[in-house]
């Protein structure tokens, strides 16, 4: 049975713990903003090795992150982070990657890195207009891509704008992700039926398919299989289940819309 050696210099202990805490904070932010599990684990290892760790044992799934660091003198310490996923943010992901590269090569003091991390996570990423341009563009383009006409695309774009507004109103604090997806699908389905009844769209199926592309997590399912092939089995399985649950929420929301619209017996 090995005993943890007593550390005489208290500042040393704080330094190791602080570095581990910092590495986990950065990796946690990366997971939140849409990085792969493998990449988060690599980040923890790189930072801790740069600050003189002998051995680093990270483990990450998409909701949890933990690592044990062992120093050359045998002192070791463990920390855990619970990861709450927010929306994908590639801009912040790029800034975080730059920060990691700088931390590994220049080894600034943990305080300096901490304040920089704070600056990244508090910075605004032009959220509003990007949603209100991106969602209509995505919905409209994919409605035409899936066999609709120009006017089907216009209808889907309108619905996309409404869903962007709905997204803004219903933050994750009010409703959880599954309920939000189902509600968005219900609203999107009703609007699609309405716009086709009014005569703007000709083909309710393609209008709906365009708006569904905004809600469905096809990418998530692809990523899940990617994690599985990379050997991150637990993360892969969790993401598969997540993708299926959100698909069910969408199917339920649209079915209710079709039923209310009288398109189902």
């Amino acid at each position, binding site marked *: 049975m090995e005993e943890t050696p007593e550390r005489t210099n208290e500042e040393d202990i704080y330094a190791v713990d602080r570095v581990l805490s910092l590495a986990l904070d950065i990796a946690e932010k990366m997971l939140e903003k*849409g*990085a792969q599990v493998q*990449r988060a684990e*690599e980040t923890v*290892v*790189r930072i801790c*090795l740069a600050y003189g760790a002998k051995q*680093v044992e990270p483990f990450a799934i998409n909701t949890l992150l933990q690592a044990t660091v062992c120093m050359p003198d045998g002192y070791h310490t463990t920390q855990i982070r619970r990861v709450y996923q927010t929306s*994908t*943010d*590639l*801009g*912040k*992901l*790029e800034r975080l*990657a730059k920060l990691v*590269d700088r931390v590994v090569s220049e080894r600034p003091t943990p305080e300096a890195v901490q304040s920089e991390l704070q600056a990244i996570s508090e910075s605004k*990423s*032009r*959220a509003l207009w*990007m*949603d209100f*341009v*991106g*969602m*209509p*563009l*995505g*919905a*409209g*383009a*994919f409605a*035409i*891509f*899936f066999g609709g006409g120009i006017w089907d695309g216009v209808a889907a774009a309108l619905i996309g704008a409404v869903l962007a507004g709905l997204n803004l109103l219903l933050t994750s604090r009010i409703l959880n992700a599954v309920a939000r997806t189902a509600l968005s699908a219900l609203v999107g389905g009703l609007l699609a039926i309405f716009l086709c009844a009014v005569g703007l769209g000709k083909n309710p199926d393609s209008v709906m*398919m365009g708006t*569904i*592309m*905004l809600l*469905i*997590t*096809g*990418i998530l*399912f*692809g990523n899940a*299989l*990617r994690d*599985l*092939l*990379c050997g991150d089995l637990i993360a892969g399985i969790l993401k598969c289940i997540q*993708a*299926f649950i959100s*698909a*069910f929420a*969408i*199917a*339920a929301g*649209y*079915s209710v819309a079709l039923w209310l619209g009288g398109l*189902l017996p």
Partner: protein
Amino acid sequence: MNWQSVLTGTLGCCGFALLYRIPLKRLPLAVLGGALGTLSLLLFQKITDSLFTSNLLAAIVAAIYCEVTARILRTPVTLFMLPALVPLAPGSYLYYATFYFVQRDMGRCLSYALGTFSVASGLAVGIVTVSLIIRVIKIPKLQRHLHK
């Protein structure tokens, strides 16, 4: 070749890139990746009937573009990968599978579920193959540490 599909697929990628909050200076290259993904998917769909094969080949083309661009610009690969793969993702299949399940039409549900799996596995195998090849080409010290 259906140019309308290429154009709308590319515009859709642009929309999703914005939704994923891509930095604006990276937007043109990300949209180019989306165009490449859409174009190669449509081309390979002409050549083969297999969902798996066409998606695999298109994913390989798109992934090579993304990995090379990211290496050159020194950015995370995800930055280009997510927008580029939107047209290849099995979104519509996954939706129809669950939709027919809710409608209790098990025959169609099953065929769309299989479609979802073929599309997604083609996508995943394509990306992983490319990233593995790139990793083998430049074995970083880090990898040796991780898999010791």
